[in-house]
């Protein structure tokens, strides 16, 4: 209601000062909590008017420009009015393949709203967003940044349009719509072993902190977030680093499109994750842990908070854990606000500190200089689950699974063209062929392993194995059959990286946008060989000159598809020489729009 009035006013209505003051008080006016404060302030007020940013800046001792910089960095923050209902369509390639674009167009038509623009009465805004991690049950929606709708189809779109017009709060929408399935298709040691909360802590305490780290070394467990750094080594570095506080952070910012295994681990067995953080705290000497939960998983927050409370009540968190004097540790959950780059550990720490998620200059690495400049171990959700099992059953047991360089199991998020999308846990070293067979994929043309920043494999390479020494993966496994256009796959990923670039360094900020421009030119059939060559040049530049790994990997899918699926590019070329990017007829679009004409006479004859 409030929002609809605001939409009609020239200046935004005031915010509820008392509610904002209470919020500030709850965060003890800590400027490091800025991202959390902005998130909750927006939840109260729908969007973040400049007056509100100014008020927060004042209260937190920050400049307005700084607060503006942070508020405009995260995709889920709005500094201009948005609808009372904010509907975001997940736009991973798997959602595309399930028809999300037509469903979005249908919803916009029914609600008489233009994508990306608030309806004039302030009721609703509709747009795309980056992958929300529900690829196995898409197309999916994110409503008001805290409620998901899965398995959307035309019928559901019609009902949603009616509910929005009728002003029914999302909390009162049919519950089954928000049902998120685990879809565990193959369980191995992580997903298949019953786990008793507290058992791994007890085992770790019996063994002692130093022996626990040695056990991690013996296991040769390597981080599952993508970088593959040895967990035992990271913990030892962090433990030995000088600092008045040590921190352990769980990276639950699972933003790589096509990845949703951390969502399932957090839903199915959050105790296993929190227990991993707790034994990690014991290993490095941390009293404070933080989980960075991606904004898209905000809907999990209440249940995760309940688990934390239960663990406090069971003496698995808090002072003197399991009666062990001096072992004090607790965990806070920070919720992200839509920024893929925050999955990179130094950006994540910047975000935890209430700043823009710009990757830091490294070295120094977080293990030595992390949160608030203190030694910080950042571990992925799956890594922490594995650590829990290693603490329970020993390093040698874990090392006996998988391959010598890639020990243990890994959990894959399988989506795309297959009969049984979902979660598959395999020993490291499992072949692509085996996974394709198990998930019921037929006539497969390509698999994108590890998400857009990973590798695109053609059928010739399906004998290869998922392992650090062959095809590394951070968990995504997207399947494309022969009916799919691999150019469109790469174009979807290019759009993702341009949207998610933090904008800090030249090659990524400008390069990702130039890739989108060139791909769009090719898509409309106006490209030439020159454009494909230019894309290869940008790819080469971005591999060596970017500030962080996001930029460095932003062109991976482009590179792989140009090399392996070149015909999908070449059939789009208008000529083999050069075609100008400037299209005179396209430049007249604004004039046509203004005059409401789109007939033949309103176009240039020469246009194809």
């Amino acid at each position, binding site marked *: 209601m409030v929002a609809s009035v605001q939409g009609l006013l020239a200046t935004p209505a005031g915010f509820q000062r008392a509610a904002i003051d209470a919020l500030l008080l709850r965060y003890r006016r800590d400027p490091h909590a800025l991202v959390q404060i902005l998130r909750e302030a927006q939840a109260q007020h729908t969007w973040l008017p400049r007056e509100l940013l100014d008020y927060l800046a004042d209260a937190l001792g920050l400049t307005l420009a700084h607060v503006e910089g942070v508020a405009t*960095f995260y995709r889920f923050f709005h500094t201009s009015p948005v609808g009372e209902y904010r509907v975001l369509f997940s736009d991973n390639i798997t959602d595309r393949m399930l028809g999300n674009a037509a469903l979005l167009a249908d919803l916009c038509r029914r609600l008489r709203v233009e994508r990306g623009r608030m309806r004039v009465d302030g009721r609703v805004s509709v747009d795309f967003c980056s992958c929300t991690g529900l690829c196995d049950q898409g197309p999916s929606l994110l409503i008001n940044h805290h409620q998901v709708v899965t398995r959307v189809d035309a019928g559901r779109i019609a009902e949603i349009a009616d509910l929005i017009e009728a002003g029914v709060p999302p909390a009162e929408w049919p519950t089954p719509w928000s049902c998120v399935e685990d879809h565990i298709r193959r369980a191995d040691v992580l997903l298949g072993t019953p786990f008793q909360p507290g058992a791994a802590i007890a085992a770790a305490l019996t063994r002692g902190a130093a022996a626990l780290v040695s056990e991690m070394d013996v296991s040769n467990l390597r981080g599952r977030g993508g970088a593959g750094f040895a967990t035992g080594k990271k913990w030892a570095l962090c433990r030995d680093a000088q600092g008045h506080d040590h921190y352990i952070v769980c990276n639950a910012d699972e933003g790589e499109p096509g990845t949703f295994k951390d969502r399932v681990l957090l839903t199915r067995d959050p105790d296993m994750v929190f227990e991993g953080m707790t034994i990690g705290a014991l290993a490095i000497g941390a009293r404070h842990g933080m989980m960075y939960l991606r904004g898209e998983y905000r809907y999990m927050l209440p249940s995760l908070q309940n688990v934390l409370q239960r663990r406090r009540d069971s003496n698995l968190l808090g002072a003197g854990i399991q009666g062990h004097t001096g072992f004090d540790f607790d965990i806070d959950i920070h919720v992200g606000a839509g920024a893929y780059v925050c999955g990179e550990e130094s950006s994540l720490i910047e975000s935890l500190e209430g700043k823009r998620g710009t990757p830091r*200059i490294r070295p120094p690495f977080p293990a030595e200089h992390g949160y608030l400049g203190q030694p910080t171990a950042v571990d992925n959700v799956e890594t922490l689950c594995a650590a829990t099992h290693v603490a329970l059953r020993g390093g040698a047991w874990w090392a006996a699974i998988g391959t010598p360089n890639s020990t243990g199991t890994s959990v894959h998020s399988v989506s795309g063209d297959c009969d049984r999308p979902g979660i598959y846990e395999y020993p490291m070293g499992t072949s692509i062929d085996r996974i394709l067979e198990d998930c019921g994929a037929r006539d497969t043309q390509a698999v994108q392993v590890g998400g857009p920043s990973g590798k695109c494999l053609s059928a010739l390479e399906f004998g290869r194995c998922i392992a650090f020494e062959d095809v590394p993966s951070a968990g995504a496994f997207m399947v494309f059959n022969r009916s799919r256009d691999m150019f469109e796959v790469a174009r979807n990923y290019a759009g993702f990286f341009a949207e998610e670039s*933090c*904008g800090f*360094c030249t*090659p990524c900020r400008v390069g990702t946008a*130039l890739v989108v421009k060139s791909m769009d030119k090719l898509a409309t059939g106006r490209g030439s060989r020159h454009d494909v060559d230019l894309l290869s040049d940008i790819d080469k530049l971005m591999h060596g000159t970017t*500030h962080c790994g996001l930029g460095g990997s932003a062109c991976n899918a482009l590179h792989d598809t140009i090399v392996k699926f070149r015909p999908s590019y070449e059939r789009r070329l208008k000529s083999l020489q050069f075609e100008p990017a400037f299209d005179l007829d396209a430049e007249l679009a604004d004039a046509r729009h203004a005059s409401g004409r789109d007939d033949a006479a309103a176009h240039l004859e020469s246009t194809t």
Partner: protein
Amino acid sequence: MSTPATAGDGAAATFSLDGKDVPFAPGETILQAARRAGRYIPHLCWHPDFHPQGSCRVCTVKVKGRAGSACTLHAAAGEVVESNTDELNAARKMLLQMLFVEGNHFCPACEKSGNCLLQATAYEMGMEDVLFEEFYPHRPIDASHADILIDFNRCIMCELCVRASHDIDGKNVFAIAGHGIGTHLVVNSMNGKLGDTDMALADRATSICPVGAILPKRRGFVIPIGERRYDPHTAADPETQEAS
């Protein structure tokens, strides 16, 4: 790689830059040491008076075959650093071309022409065209301040003004906002205009801009074309590697 003796015989540690030794002090970056030795590694966002930020990437060099920014990589004794190579200069040229198409840079009409580090570096790297399609972004200028003009069209997001205003002027007039290609400089005032800040003509933030984004008013063409910083000099000359 073994570390040559530095304390024992008193000799300064050195690294090799394109085959010639460069001495360095402990904790110095490759760019700091090279700059002090009068050597040229092209750079835009780095300035000797400020902490490095590593965003323009123009100072990208190769150490043991790995690329990195010379302004953030610490120098190490005996290390072999490649900078002035065809491959790296081609990469730099492309980065410059990206900066040119990202904003609206019309050198003939710009008061900074001849004093501009972006332009001088582009000459140095042999840039003769912009290669890419221009973005032609819509970026209104801010002429609200009595003495200072901001033309955002020319901003290259080097953040030198952000650092100068914070570190030297103690005013925090600027910050960076947005993300991706929409990243932009913002001004710290309620209406976002420079006229409502306490920025002054004598501030370091006013003179630090390497391009024509922040300019003093009423100084147009005081120095004639032909006598400007990069008319007798180049960006590679030891005394003119920065615009100010």
